[in-house]
């Protein structure tokens, strides 16, 4: 990079759990030691509202090398944009999918899971059997459920299809008219029960697993199913650690045949009205959890540094660099450019079989093309809603500290408390803005 532009980059890495707070503290206190930040677009509301981030719209318009229109519309229009202006450059395409072992399912004549009931049935079938030939019983499902890690995204991947059926703008977290959380109803109860049930077919210490554990377990052949971002497929082709090369299939998040009727708070069967986007009668709601690593520039950085910072982010996102990055598992970057979906050679060159690449990219495409995609919570205090209140409630629920009903009550109470503290009307407007509702 120095050779290319003359700019020297000093990279400061921060543990994920501290990232949100570190950046925000640096900006609010006026320290401004970070000039360029790579973070979750999910937190954008907290960064853009007080005016900490540089508006990148004019720079991007004047940068043909970035090939902006090659970036998937969802990432361009939702992840990178806030209030109609572009603030981040996507480096990663994030949403969750379910991964399964093609060899195991084929041997049993099973289809990949379409609903969460299917998921549980498949998990139950393989749980306790030796799945990688080492003589030790393995697990039907393995999901990261550790507290203070990624569990709350995993859970919402299950809950999403029960809560949202009318398209992205319906929102899957709050009622867009009252800002009342969608957490006190039959649909949410069902989602909690399924989430807990997956643990019955999972490893004994699943509550202590983060994605590092679940990914390692899946690629070493210890789980038949897992729930994750796009990283599994690229990790599975890494010859150094994978025992499941070309045995991995990906599929859009399973859905449900019953969805939430928001007025009654009850589950109702899918039909043309209740689930307009259903496929085979199943409502899917792929969840753009986290939103993908994105780069942004500190508005208070010196002008010259801003230019250099932009050049760096643009370079990272340009197809020449990005199309290699997304094929390497350990980067944590997943495909987000149209050219990355269409160019199968890229993936075959990286070590995937053509069938595996088609399957993987197909699942991503199916998710991205879904009009019922769930946008992650992107309002002020998102980290408190999800990272603290939801995360703690889920962990306590799984540990048996709370019953299903208590968990729903605690969560609803906790979320309403934050909403009232930050201002219900203001939060509602922010939530509506994040979903582009006018």
């Amino acid at each position: 990079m120095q050779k290319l532009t003359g700019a020297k980059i000093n990279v400061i890495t921060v543990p994920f759990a501290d990232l949100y707070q570190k950046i925000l503290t640096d900006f609010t206190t006026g320290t401004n030691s970070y000039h360029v930040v790579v973070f979750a677009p999910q937190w954008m509301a907290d960064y853009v509202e007080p005016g900490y981030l540089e508006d990148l719209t004019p720079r991007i318009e004047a940068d043909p090398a970035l090939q902006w229109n090659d970036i998937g519309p969802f990432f361009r229009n939702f992840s990178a944009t806030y209030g109609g202006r572009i603030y981040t450059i996507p480096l990663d395409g994030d949403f969750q999918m379910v991964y399964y072992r093609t060899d195991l399912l084929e041997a049993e004549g099973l289809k990949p899971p379409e609903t969460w009931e299917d998921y549980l049935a498949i998990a139950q079938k393989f749980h306790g059997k030796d799945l990688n030939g080492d003589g030790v019983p393995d697990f039907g499902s393995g999901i990261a459920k550790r507290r203070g890690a990624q569990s709350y995204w995993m859970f919402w991947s299950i809950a999403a299809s029960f809560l949202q059926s009318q398209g992205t703008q319906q929102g899957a977290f709050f009622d867009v008219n009252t800002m009342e959380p969608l957490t006190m109803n039959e649909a949410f109860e069902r989602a909690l029960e399924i989430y807990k049930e997956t643990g019955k077919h999972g490893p004994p210490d699943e509550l202590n697993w983060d994605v590092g554990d679940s990914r390692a377990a899946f690629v070493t052949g210890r789980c038949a199913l897992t729930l994750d971002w796009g990283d599994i497929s690229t990790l599975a082709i890494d010859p150094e650690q994978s025992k499941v090369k070309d045995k991995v299939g990906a599929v859009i998040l399973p859905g449900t045949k019953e969805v939430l009727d928001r007025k009654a708070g009850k589950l109702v069967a899918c039909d043309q009205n209740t689930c307009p986007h259903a496929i085979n009668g199943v409502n899917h709601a792929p969840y753009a959890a986290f939103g993908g690593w994105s780069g942004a520039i500190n508005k208070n950085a010196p002008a010259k540094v801003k230019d250099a910072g932009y050049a760096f982010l643009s370079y990272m996102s340009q197809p020449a660099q990005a199309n290699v990055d997304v094929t390497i598992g350990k980067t944590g970057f997943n495909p987000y450019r149209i050219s990355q979906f269409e160019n199968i050679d890229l993936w075959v060159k990286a070590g995937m079989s053509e069938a595996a690449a088609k399957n993987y990219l197909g699942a991503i495409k199916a998710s991205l093309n879904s009009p019922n995609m769930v946008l992650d919570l992107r309002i002020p205090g998102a980290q408190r809603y999800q990272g603290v209140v939801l995360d703690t409630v889920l962990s306590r629920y799984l540990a048996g500290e709370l019953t299903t009903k208590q968990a729903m009550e605690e969560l609803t109470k906790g979320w309403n408390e934050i909403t009232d503290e930050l201002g219900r009307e203001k939060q509602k407007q922010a939530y509506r803005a994040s979903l582009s509702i006018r």
Partner: protein
Amino acid sequence: MRQTRPSVLPPRTGDAVAAPTRRIPLSRERVVSWADQQAGAVLVLPAVLVILVLSIFPLLFSLYLSLSRFQPVSGGFEIHFRGLANYRKLFVGSEQQQFLGQLARLDTAGWLFFLATGTLTVFLLGRALRSGPLTFPRLLGHGTVALGLLLALWLISRTVVSGGRPGTLVVTWVYVFGGVALQFLIGLLLAALCAQQLPGRRTFRVVFLLPMMLTPVGVAYTFRMLTDTGKGPFAPIANWLGYANVSWVNDPWGARIAVMIGDLWQWTPFMFIVLLAALESQSPEPIEAAIVDGANRWQIFWHITLPQIAPVASTVILIRLIEAFKIVDMPYVLTGGGPGTATESLTLHTYVLWRSLDYGTSAAVAYTLLFVVTFVGIAYVRLLHRRVSEAL
């Protein structure tokens, strides 16, 4: 043991300072003496300033934070004063379950525990009061300690004994009192062994001391691996025993015990080394006399060794008590505070809140911790430490 020491400082006189105002001609001696008097203050000033800036200011500011709400806004941040709202949230509001725990109704066992320990507390209070003159400060001091103890016992009865669930406050007490007691006992045992004329004792001293030198986070990661029955080094043994599908860190008490074992492993050496020094420095004459009189080993230990090392033991327990309240690395790395909130300590609770920029509630937890530590420290010094030290 306490003596009135002669003061080493020269007696203060104001004359030299006041001298110039009385228009007494300046002499070299007067200037030197004036400078001499000021030198102390000037030399201490940098240290005082450093303490003021780095210690007192943050202390007061965090007190203010604990009474307010922090919010990042355009161009900086705002702090709104909210009175006791953050504390209300902890003790009766949405954070109560996590902070105090789930309060169950007292059942028979709970009542029995509370009445037994409560009666003991009141009895000890009465005995302590009778042992000296009944003055108001003593009454107030002892009464406050007893009240604090009763409140703590009541909380324990409702959260642990009666089938409720302990919150971060009680869990921290478990780590502190359970952990320090075990560390002391094991440390004393090891020290007693190493004080014997056994072969290889020098090597053992170094070996026993090693855990203290390691970074706590490293130790925590090691224990995370060790307690993993699925992939860890003990996995084959767990498999062989048929426990491959059991994870003891998924059980609340199992996880707490795992955290305590890690803490025990790390901090017993500190107890060990201090107690060993105390054991080795005790005077041999009383022991020799006791042997001549035909006392057995236990009698010697109980009546001679223990009273001799008591002041040191009491001090080292006090240091560990204060230190143990701040436990964070072990639960954070080992279990992330889980399962649920089972292993979360007060410091970890503070950190979790702080991480999401809820500085107000975070500071309120931190201040409650400060209050508890101060209370326990003062109570310990007044009731136990002083008595043990004065007994000699």
